[in-house]
């Protein structure tokens, strides 16, 4: 547990000395992650885009990753900071496994560990510029939580980051229920991701869905959603607007 304190990222103690060592703004960013609990576990969805400002520069960025045996993480925000977080988590899980004693860190523990990391970085004015979703199942207990760059953290039956909070969660509030089957869950997530694709400028049409159950983690191959652009309102967007062309 103490080992993570001595990793390279902690030389951000220098942050107070020179601003060149602090995070000021993000460069390559991922957009929303959406997560829901379903009957057998957790489902997470995220597209594979890495934006460079307003340019949709990278289109095969994996933003969903497994963590140990019991959890998966989805990240939005600065991709390089996510990669750093994955190094922290890989080290955490490594030391956990090295105990070799039948105990293992579950999703709740990982979520809280991340919360501590994010909050401590925020307090040093050197945040990891991410919003994270952490979900998992351990001993039959499902867990789904989120934590962001300022250390705000909570758990719920459905969570999202970024635009997902504004566009996906209202859908989930209406349509989520306990005991969704896997197919229903995926359909629900796809509905959310489709809305995000239409309305979020940093979304790309290539996504992955990750599933975690007691049995383990599966992350789907990338695929695309079918979209429909033939709405008359799209074809003639300014009909009825006086003065528009």
């Amino acid at each position, binding site marked *: 547990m103490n080992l993570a304190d001595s990793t390279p990222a902690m030389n951000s103690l220098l942050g107070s000395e020179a601003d060149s060592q602090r995070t000021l703004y993000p460069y390559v960013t991922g957009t929303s992650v959406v997560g829901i609990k379903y009957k057998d576990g957790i489902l997470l969805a995220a597209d594979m885009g890495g934006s460079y400002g307003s340019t949709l520069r990278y289109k095969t960025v994996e933003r969903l990753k497994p963590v140990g045996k019991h959890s998966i993480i989805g990240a939005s925000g600065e991709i390089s900071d996510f990669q750093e977080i994955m190094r922290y988590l890989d080290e955490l899980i490594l030391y956990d496994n090295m*105990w070799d*004693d039948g*105990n293992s860190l579950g999703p709740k*523990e990982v979520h809280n*560990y991340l919360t501590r990391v994010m909050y401590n970085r925020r307090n040093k004015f050197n945040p990891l510029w991410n919003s994270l979703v952490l979900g998992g199942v351990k001993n039959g207990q499902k867990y789904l939580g989120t934590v962001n760059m300022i250390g705000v953290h909570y758990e719920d039956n459905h969570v999202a980051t970024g635009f997902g909070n504004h566009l996906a969660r209202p859908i989930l509030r209406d349509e989520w229920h306990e005991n969704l089957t896997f197919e229903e869950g995926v359909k629900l997530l796809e509905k959310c991701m489709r809305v995000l694709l239409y309305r979020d400028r940093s979304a790309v049409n290539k996504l992955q869905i990750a599933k975690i159950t007691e049995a383990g983690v599966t992350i789907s191959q990338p695929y695309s959603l079918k979209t429909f652009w033939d709405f008359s309102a799209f074809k003639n967007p300014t009909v009825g607007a006086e003065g528009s062309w």
Partner: protein
Amino acid sequence: MFRNQYDTDVTTWSPAGRLFQVEYAMEAVKQGSAAIGLRSKTHVVLACVNKASSELSSHQKKIFKVDDHIGVAIAGLTADGRVLSRYLRNECINYSYTYESSLPVGRLVVQLADKAQVCTQRSWKRPYGVGLLVGGLDESGAHLYYNCPSGNYFEYQAFAIGSRSQAAKTYLERKFEGFMDAREDLIKDALFALRETLQGEKLTSSICTIAIVGVGEAFHILDQETVQALIDEFEIVGEEPPADEAATPDQSSDAEPGPADQGTPSDQGATPMDI
């Protein structure tokens, strides 16, 4: 054990491959007053003899709550035990803070053992002169460990340390297979085992301390009235240990005259407590 030329510091091996300072530290544990631990699948009970040095003084604290799910009973240099308890509490609380979850007992004892080992390999340190019975609960069930000044640790179903602990161990060896999940029986067994170490002296709640931790029950020390009530309860039954549901054959006498060095076994006379 006699003095020899290899026992001055802990960093000197004897030709027979022994570290005498470490062994002397373990002697200190044997000289301390008895502490007993026993566990079932769902509970762990710690009990110890708490004799005040004079009527005017209070007794030494020998049982420490480490966290809601872990407690320790010590025997030996109680000051060392107190300091180690502070370390254990710190480790638990730091883990809880970071992971919002209880530190598994097995990991805590390894950390404690590693700390003790350091003292066996530094010329400017001495081994801790205290043995700890660590009882706690985690995901994998109820656990009882014994941590030694040598840096070794072992898991036990039941164990006793300190002076006259052999009498208690003999009793526990007979009874451990019958440790049911019934918490009251576990406490009674602890009291009986404790009585074995008193060698005929009357067992009252003023000279012993009992603590318990279990599923749904945070670690806590039982108050004097509760303990006295339990003692009275089994005294009424007679000298026999309570009839276990498993009906263990050894119902007749509460203490077989096991270890020869214990002197008077307490089965002499039906009610030695009434003397």
